[in-house]
């Protein structure tokens, strides 16, 4: 006689499961990776050779040696060809490698290399590299590669950089909502700014 209850149970179950899915969907993808597309660059820049661990044959160059604007500008910047050449004109061993030859072609023509953006936020977003570097590298004393890696992923293991994190708004917020120590020693914490105009232009 109460066979009709099956439908009600089904309905209730549907509502409950939809609800729980929705709640789950509301959780931002805090740490999940979201691999971006492979970006075709003028030539392959081997991040792993430059920044990788010594054990893996890398030279452990500080990210900010080349991306020098990161600590004083909202963009991290691409080094001028000048900088590449500054080192490479003294490194005879790889002088004839095809990539280096290409580099010197640009240098001789005094042309900037048309690198494509790999981490390209929408134009209405104001992401400030300087603030993040100041906070995490200089104030908290985090290793540079770790601090950069929060958003850029494990670049030292890549050749051509590729986006690893979603860089979506919820993803940004998930970190802004965490308590971060205000400096290396203090136990005081604070959160990232939360008003819209901090990030939206």
């Amino acid at each position, binding site marked *: 006689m109460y066979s009709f209850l099956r439908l009600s149970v089904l309905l209730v179950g549907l509502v409950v499961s939809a609800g729980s899915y929705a709640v789950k969907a509301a959780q931002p993808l805090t740490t999940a990776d979201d691999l*971006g*597309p492979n*970006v*075709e660059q003028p030539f392959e820049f081997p991040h792993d050779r430059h920044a990788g661990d010594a054990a893996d044959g890398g030279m452990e160059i500080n990210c900010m040696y080349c991306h020098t*604007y990161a600590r*004083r*500008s*909202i*963009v991290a*910047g*691409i*080094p*001028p*060809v*000048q900088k590449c050449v500054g080192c490479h004109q003294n490194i005879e061993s790889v002088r004839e490698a095809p990539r280096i030859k290409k580099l010197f072609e*640009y*240098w001789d023509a*005094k*042309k*900037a*290399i*048309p*690198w*494509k*953006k*790999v*981490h*390209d*936020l*929408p*134009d*209405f977003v104001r992401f400030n590299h300087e603030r993040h570097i100041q906070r995490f590298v200089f104030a908290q004393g985090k290793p540079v590669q770790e601090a950069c890696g929060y958003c850029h992923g494990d670049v030292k293991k890549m050749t051509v950089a590729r*986006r690893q994190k*979603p*860089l*979506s*708004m919820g993803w940004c917020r998930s970190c802004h909502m965490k308590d971060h120590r205000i400096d290396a020693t203090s136990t005081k914490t604070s959160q990232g700014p939360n008003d819209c105009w901090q990030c939206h*232009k």
Partner: protein
Amino acid sequence: MIENGFNRRNFLKVLGWGGATVALSGCGNTSVEDGREFVTSYAETADYIIPSIGTYFNSTCAQCDAGCGIMGRVREGRVLKLEGNPESPINNGKMCGLGQAGVQAHYNPDRIREPLLRNGDRGEAITWEKALELINEKVGSVNPENVAFLTGVVSGHVKALLNNYLDALGSGHHYVYEAVAPSVVRASNKKAYGVEMPRLSMDKAKVIVSFGADFLGAWVSPVHFSQQYARFRKPDNGERGVLVQVESKMTLTGANADRWLAIRPGTEGILALGLINSLAAAGLPVSEDVAAAVGEYTSDRVSKDTGVSAEHIAKLAALLKERSPSLVIAGSAAEGYAHGSQNAAAIALLNQVLGNVGQTVEAPSSVPFPQMAPSTGNSFALQSLSDDMAQDKVKVLFSYGANPVFTAPAFFKLKENLKKVPFKVVFAHYMDETAVEADLVLPLNSAMEDWATLMPEYIAEGAQLNIRQPLMEKMYPGTLGVGDILLAMLKQRRPDEYNDYEDFYSYLRSAMVSNKDALGGADKDDDTFWETALSHGVVKLVGEPVNMTGSMSAAALVVPAPFAEDATYPLHLIPAVSASMRDGRNANEPWLQESPDPLTTIVWDSWVEMHPKTAAKLGIVEGDIVEVASKSGAIKAQAYLFPGIHPDVVSVPLGYGHEAMGRYAKGVGSNAFSILDPVFDNETGELAMHETRVKVTKAGQRVIIVKDEGPAGGSQMGRRIALRIPSNKVNLSEEV
């Protein structure tokens, strides 16, 4: 700040441009886009170039002749915004709207991009080599006496080059033309004080009486005067200066006056003399000849003649006597009549009687390099040129920095006269009315791409040489700076002297560096001097104050009686010079078209201002299209009723009514220059701009005026919005 020319140009390249600003179009892509755009990068860079942080370069504004220093914000090789250069004593980091719109001249889509040679009705693009060859050929084939240059105000090294070119040719025909310039006042100042443009220390004055000088809007150096005005209104001691404006049509300055006195047009001189009379009567010591000259200007008579009430004359006289020093300024309203010189002289006399000369009317500095001092222009120059052309005395005409076909009144018949000139070369930014008439059009660099030095006519302290330098790479390879063109032309005439200079930049640098001792760089090496000069944007010069006299005689001073009524043309036309439109040379900059006229709030059109009383008499309501007809022509425009105008007067703004020039200027409004009557100042021969008599009739149509003001007009409807309080009710000295 700037290392060297090579590097600098490199940095000014447009880089990283690609959708950097476009967001939210359509559905607004909010997701991350990888690999679509290029990163800003350089082959070489300097330390001060940091991506996404603006770099500031100092230069000089080219929007009017005041010579304000500007500071261009440059990012990724693009100049984004112009700020005032804080180091320039003229504008101290401030700007007017007109100046800021300079970027719109630079990025204007209607700029000419390559030299054009007339082929029938059309312009044909040619190369610079061909253009210069053509000039060489044409100039070479005529008598040097038949070569003429028509320019706007020129100064600095461009002027030097121009003079050298004329010198090389052996022609002395350089006509300096300014459509709206205080030339009568200059002449009368010269007479009264011995200098054309004395320094006006408004901040020292306690009372300013301005006879139609719109020094806050469009007169001489408005940004500078505005700053002085601020100090005049709110000096440190809290004694607020009083501004009284006497004019027939309210200017922006008049709108800021404590008392705006509507005066019958042309009677400014009478009022000035009447004030002297009243002052003398109140016990101010005046010399005998002065007393004699003003004897008949009793308060009653003056009041009757000028329409200013005796009460106000008395109050003003009392104020002037009580609060000293004061400053009396003669502006366009006073000078724009056939007796403009007399008016100006009467006003100068008032200054003298009040003892302002040497107090608030001060001596300017002499200019160490007279060959670079500005040649100020006037309308007489155009008249002589026009006459010369009519008599076939001009075979080759160069025009630079002026648009005479637009600004000359119709009676000049300039267009017809121009037709008589076989070869006309116009240096132009836009295809304006004059360029359209040219045989050869040479496209100029914008002020943001050009090298130049400039010396403004009015400098607040000492003397200075302004530097104009490129703020970014040239937009179009086909344009050249005026200096480059002149240099190339000089190379044709004096190759030995000038062939060493690759371009105008190298000429300029070497000219500056070789004179560095006089330019305050005696203790610096060449590069340091040059870089310092560029980074400051101004070079301060040491000048001696020139001698000024303050003892003009009143003996010869006669001011004519007020105008007689004219039954056919009952109204006076005042062509208004607005702060943003001026003589119309910037009409193609949309910010200026869209920023409302301060007094009427009208945009994108001309209008006929008239007093509500006059309008009622003529049966005109706001928005009626009316015809303003003078003996020399007629224009149509929308009527705007305005409580700041004498009932005998209608006013039409200048600068509108372009028939060419570009998409933003063409067809907007009507050209008030065209209907001016051929009346000239008795002494200087300047066009008397305010002498035109007109009649106003309804043309039948009615439009809704496009303006910012709503249907409430200027009324606050009893709500507390913009408040006003008598100045004796507050204590300014306590304010922060």
